[in-house]
């Protein structure tokens, strides 16, 4: 037992070190005054020099704003399409082409990103020649590409939630006089909302940090944040990238903390209610 405890603790420490040392070193170096990333200027550090520089960097601010807009639009569109696909796959039994649809929606999950990006680029070029839309590559094509692969993730999340859904609830609503659209809006949608919300968050983060597929379908003047960071790093890591990354880590960590606290609170309330009900039963 003793050796097991020692082993578990060791594994935990190693794992944490492995995961977080790179991030922590990045955060520490973001407060470095020196222009050279690897040299710690102990005389003038810590400083917010690079955070201040960030505010004036129009290139990075513009790229961040573009990334946010693309992520918002593609997450939202992916949620709508993914929910529909998830509904079709779980609800309509065995229709013609079900296997095909199931395969197609999950393909982007396993397809190498390079191939997805390349094939999307070829598609957009061909479409531009045939129907004249989309005209050139840029924000529009990036958004379309992001919707494509984000939708696959949303479908999987929504589908698993619907698989555990008691269809008697929908039948009961229909029995009480609600038409199918009403049943969906009043019963189904509210109950799968947690899955849709987590699907949206997942899609947002996927779109926000995608680099490979974006590279293929981006054009001049449509550089997303990951693209800007990547191109800057190619000429050597600059300290303002550290500052930018630190801000991103902070935002993500806050989001996760809030959602964890909220979920735990809900879970606790649910457990307490169930205990009350059980007590009332006696």
């Amino acid at each position, binding site marked *: 037992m003793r050796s097991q405890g020692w082993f578990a603790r060791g594994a935990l420490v190693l794992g944490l070190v492995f995961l977080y040392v790179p991030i922590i070193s990045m955060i520490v170096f973001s407060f470095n005054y020196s222009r050279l990333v690897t040299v710690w200027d102990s005389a003038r550090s810590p400083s917010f020099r690079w955070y201040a520089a960030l505010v004036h960097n129009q290139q990075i601010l513009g790229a961040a704003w573009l990334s946010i807009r693309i992520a918002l639009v593609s997450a939202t569109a992916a949620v709508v399409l993914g929910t529909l696909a998830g509904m079709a796959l779980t609800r309509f039994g065995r229709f013609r082409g079900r296997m095909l649809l199931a395969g197609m929606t999950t393909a982007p999950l396993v397809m190498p990103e390079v191939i997805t990006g390349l094939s999307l680029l070829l598609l957009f070029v061909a479409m531009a020649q045939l129907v004249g839309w989309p005209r050139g590559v840029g924000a529009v094509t990036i958004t379309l590409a992001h919707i494509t692969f984000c939708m696959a993730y949303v479908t999987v999340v929504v589908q698993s939630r619907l698989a555990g859904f008691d269809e*008697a609830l929908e039948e009961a*609503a229909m*029995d*009480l006089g609600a038409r199918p659209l009403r049943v969906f809006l009043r019963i189904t949608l*509210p109950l799968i909302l947690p899955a849709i919300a987590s699907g949206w968050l997942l899609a947002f983060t996927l779109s926000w940090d995608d680099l490979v597929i974006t590279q293929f379908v981006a054009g001049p003047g449509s550089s997303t944040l990951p693209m800007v960071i990547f191109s800057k790093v190619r000429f050597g890591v600059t300290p303002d990238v550290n500052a930018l990354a630190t801000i991103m880590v902070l935002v993500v960590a806050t989001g996760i903390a809030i959602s964890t606290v909220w979920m735990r609170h809900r879970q606790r309330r649910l457990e307490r*209610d169930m205990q009350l009900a059980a007590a*009332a*039963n006696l």
Partner: protein
Amino acid sequence: MTANPMSAATPSASPDPAAYVRLARVTKKFGDFTAVDEVSLDIRRGEIFCLLGGSGSGKTTLLRMLAGFERPSAGSVYIDGVDMSAIPPYERPVNMMFQSYALFPHMSVEKNVAFGLEQEGLGRDAIRRQVGEILDIVKMGGYGARKPHQLSGGQRQRVALARALVKRPKLLLLDEPLAALDKKLREHTQFELLNIQQRLGVTFIVVTHDQEEAMTLGQRLGVMNHGKIVQVGTPSDIYESPASRFVADFIGSVNMFEGRVSEEGTGFVRIECGELGCAVRAERAVACGHGTTVWTAIRPEKINISRRPPAAGAAGAENAVRGTVREIAYMGDMSIYLVQIDSGKMLRVTLPNITRGGERPLAREEGVWLSWHGSSPVVLTE
């Protein structure tokens, strides 16, 4: 009314003017599997009709066709004289109480009950008033703001009932309404359901696999097997005069022997039972010829058990056999005796424990005589 399945099979020939729900040769197939097989049935206005059957007998499919969730493969369903074939569930004058209750988990009790009324476009005040009324009827008045997961099983059952009744349907379908409740609560709820049904004058169709539930709730029962209704009748009709071996065996417990008709008199038949080792004189008019193979069914509580042979009038060789007590199960209100008769067959006999410790009770391995009255055996030809 003693309904036999033959008259129920041809309702168009003898339409019951009081029939509120009519199933006319309704069949439902799922692929190659026939879940419901040409069922015809009339259900009167205001009655409680129980569909009783084992799992896979087609009773739930029948109920779902009445609610509109399944479409018959053939035949039609009429409610109040209107053909329901093309009418979707949300337009039928029918409400259903689901086995799982299917309460909407994200809505309060009040909202759950109000849902049906909201679909009718009723005003807020009218909805609030009617929801309050129905919650009072099911004695859930103070629980309007609770969520379903904050309720106990019995309370959920009441809310489900209120939700199904609030639209004042003329027909309420109940799918195993008491299955999820514990025994004490079931008995209580059973009588309350009857009470509510009487007060509101709703026609109830109840699906259940529990014969006790069916007997206490139902004014008439329909016993289902393999997608067919094998017998329709009042609970006592079905218990005392089962139409077939399946029904006799399914409802309650029964001792059954194969035998041959040896004599046919007026109002009685004599049956030679090799398995029993005595002749059975059954005081029933049975339409079967001399020498036909029949089955004699005797309920365990209709057999007398005694240490001495029955009175000489019973002639010894008729309706009386000798055996040995092999097992005794004391149940409190009654005892079950398993008696091995001289032919080797085991018989089940139940006796109420009327006196308290007076007489010396029967012991295991004690020799006894079993006898029964001539009106007790049921003679079955199928």
